[in-house]
């Protein structure tokens, strides 16, 4: 049996930061992780994280995982056991893990950090066990970690951050998100995340739930309905949605089995996510040798998980190495309190109170409304009016034009005398909530610069659609400038009529759908109408311009419809229109038939 000073279970953000802190203090540490590379759920996150620069704000999740991995891989005192699943805890500070599904390894520790994270909650509805119903995180794993898309048309249940982020990531991968359902009357996650998907046209249906999945062997649809104030479905409001994949994003619940086996007291605190280990402010459980950090102790963001990982590691180091790290611990506790001081953390604060962990005093925060700034100047508009823990725009601005202040939850205030219109903040903002605007009264146009994270990247001169915050068409826009950024948040500058300056929030490729009239040659109603508008007045002309009726069916399918369109547009009755000349063959036959020639002898 191998002996370690410290063992860390779980290689997510909390576990990796913990192991890194332990290792850099010379503690002989083993970190055990189930996956073949550590990173936890960060590896499937493609969005930029909120927070401050010390905690990787504006960096994408999978890149944070790479950085944290680099930190622990470089430490001589940290041993990493990958593809290793801890299967049980035993007396005498020992545990057993299975490596690669077959080798059993037993190790002992002086101090243990359990950072096992959480798993997705189930939501029981009829056929919720059908293939095609996934946890939201499962779809993220498939698409972002492995590049595999499990469906074409998605329904997401739950508008917390995971549901909102998933919707955005699905759209980035080129599939359709039919709707996001939310049982409450308001968005569960951050407003900026919701705005990102709304302007792309994804409806968030409030006071709605899923009643059943449709399908025999796999999901082929969903029945959804409105709910009343007691979350009971309202009869008569049922709607059927055609989707092939349903994603459940109704929250996470901590994975506490190993903590239970390690004799830590577990208590049910719904505000923290369910059953959680009882612990003190410094992350020590009721077993003095066992600490917890991250989602196992309360369902939150990766930033708070990282801070908790550090706090627990520092507490462990104090005892293992008999050193005093009071100052460092206090500093981390203050940072953690700051991150948790916003209105979005009210449940966490009240949950922690039940353990006797009180919220430390923090500088007050301020909520400021949307500033439009001086018209006519190219400037940043920061559409970030909800208090969330993030100050990446303030930190990135070289001109000190954005102010957030001591409490990271305060909403940004722009100093328009200092703003140079450089747009650095546009590509840095994790919420994609900043855009550039300039009114041009001389040409009666407006110029808008928006963050753009889709493919294909529009080209200068291209005509596109300007969309409002709900994804509705507002006006045509012309692409004027494209800035490709290394962090993949590109900026597209578009120009459009001045009167829409405050309305356009996003741009999309024109998507006019028009019914196919000629099935053989795939000619749409719009193409036929355009040909008539451009001067075609009879059937023969239409045939030559569009190839309608000239495919294998010889016009059997569509001739009458085409004549009807021509009659409607020109005002000439069908009976008076020429309907062309019929020629052989009237059915598709092989050419060889003609080459044989004449009557069979």
């Amino acid at each position, binding site marked *: 049996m191998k002996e370690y000073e410290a063992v860390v279970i779980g290689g997510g953000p909390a576990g990796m930061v913990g192991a890194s802190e332990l290792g850099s203090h010379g503690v002989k540490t083993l970190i055990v992780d*189930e996956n*073949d590379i550590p990173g936890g*759920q960060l590896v499937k996150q*493609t969005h930029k994280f909120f927070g401050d620069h010390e905690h990787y704000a504006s960096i*994408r999740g*999978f890149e944070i995982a790479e950085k944290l991995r680099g930190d622990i891989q470089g430490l001589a005192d940290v041993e990493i056991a990958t593809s290793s*699943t801890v299967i049980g805890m035993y007396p005498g500070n020992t545990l057993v893990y299975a490596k690669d*599904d077959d080798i059993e390894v037993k190790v002992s520790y002086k101090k243990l950090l359990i950072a096992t994270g959480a*798993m*997705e909650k*189930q939501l029981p509805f009829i056929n919720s*066990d*059908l*293939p*095609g*119903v*996934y*946890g939201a*995180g*499962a*779809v993220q*794993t*498939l*698409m*972002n970690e*492995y*590049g*595999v*898309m*499990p*469906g*074409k048309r998605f329904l997401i249940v739950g508008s917390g951050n995971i549901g909102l982020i998933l919707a955005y990531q699905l759209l*980035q*991968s*080129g*599939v359709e998100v039919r709707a996001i359902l939310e049982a409450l009357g308001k968005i569960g996650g951050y407003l900026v995340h919701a705005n990102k998907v709304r302007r792309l046209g994804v409806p968030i249906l409030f006071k709605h739930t899923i009643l059943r999945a449709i399908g025999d*062997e*796999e999901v082929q649809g969903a029945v959804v309905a409105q709910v009343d104030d007691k979350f009971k479905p309202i009869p008569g409001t049922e709607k059927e949605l055609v989707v092939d994949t349903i994603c459940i994003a109704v929250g996470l619940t901590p*994975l506490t089995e190993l903590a239970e086996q390690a004799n830590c007291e577990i208590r049910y605190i719904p505000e923290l996510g369910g059953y959680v280990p009882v612990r003190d402010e410094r992350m020590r459980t009721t077993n003095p040798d066992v600490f917890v950090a991250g989602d196992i102790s309360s369902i939150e963001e990766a930033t708070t998980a990282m801070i908790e990982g550090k706090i627990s590691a520092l507490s462990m180091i104090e005892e293992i190495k008999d050193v005093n790290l009071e100052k460092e611990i206090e500093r981390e506790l203050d940072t953690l309190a700051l991150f948790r001081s916003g209105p979005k953390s009210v449940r966490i604060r009240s949950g922690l109170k039940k353990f006797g962990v009180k919220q430390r005093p923090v500088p007050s925060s301020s909520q400021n409304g949307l500033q439009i700034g001086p018209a006519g100047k190219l400037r940043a508009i920061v559409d970030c009016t909800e208090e969330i823990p993030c100050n990446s725009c303030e930190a990135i601005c070289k001109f000190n034009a954005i102010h957030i202040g001591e409490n990271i939850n305060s909403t940004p205030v722009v100093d328009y005398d200092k703003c140079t219109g450089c747009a650095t903040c546009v590509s840095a903002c994790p919420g994609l909530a900043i855009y550039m605007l300039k009114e041009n009264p001389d040409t009666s146009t407006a110029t808008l610069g928006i963050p753009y*994270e*889709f*493919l294909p990247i529009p080209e200068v001169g291209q005509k596109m659609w300007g969309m409002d915050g709900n994804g509705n068409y507002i006006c045509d826009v012309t692409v004027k400038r494209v800035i490709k950024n290394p962090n*993949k948040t590109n900026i597209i500058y578009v120009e459009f009529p001045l009167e829409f300056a405050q309305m356009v929030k996003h741009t999309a490729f024109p998507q006019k759908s028009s019914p196919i009239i000629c099935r053989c040659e795939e000619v749409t109603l719009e193409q036929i109408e355009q040909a008539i508008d451009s001067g075609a007045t009879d059937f023969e002309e239409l045939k030559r311009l569009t190839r309608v009726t000239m495919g294998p069916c010889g016009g059997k399918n569509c001739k009458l419809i085409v004549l009807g369109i021509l009659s409607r547009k020109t005002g000439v009755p069908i009976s008076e229109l020429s309907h062309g000349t019929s020629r052989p063959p009237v059915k598709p036959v092989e050419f060889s038939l003609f080459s044989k020639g004449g009557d069979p002898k």
Partner: protein
Amino acid sequence: MRGRIKFHPILEFKEKKKIKFYFEDQEIEAYEGDTVAVALHAAGIRILRYTPINGRPAGLFCAVGKCSSCLMEIDGIPNRRSCMTRVKEGMRVRRQNKRGDVV
């Protein structure tokens, strides 16, 4: 679009070494590093087993080794988490029926 994502605005999916394995005796192509569940999803297969009591189809739910919804028979051994088991060349994978036979 179901299956492998070819273009992505943020991520780069490098083409990996292709390997072959068998699902219900049918040859399936996978990328090295894929889990069994991933490779099957890439091939459009989402039904991974039939449940022990009611014989209902079941598939992937959490994809990270927690929920045990994706148990399959892999190389003759039942109850293996297809979301955590890497595909290997020539591996034989079957939909698990019921609880799986004791070998």
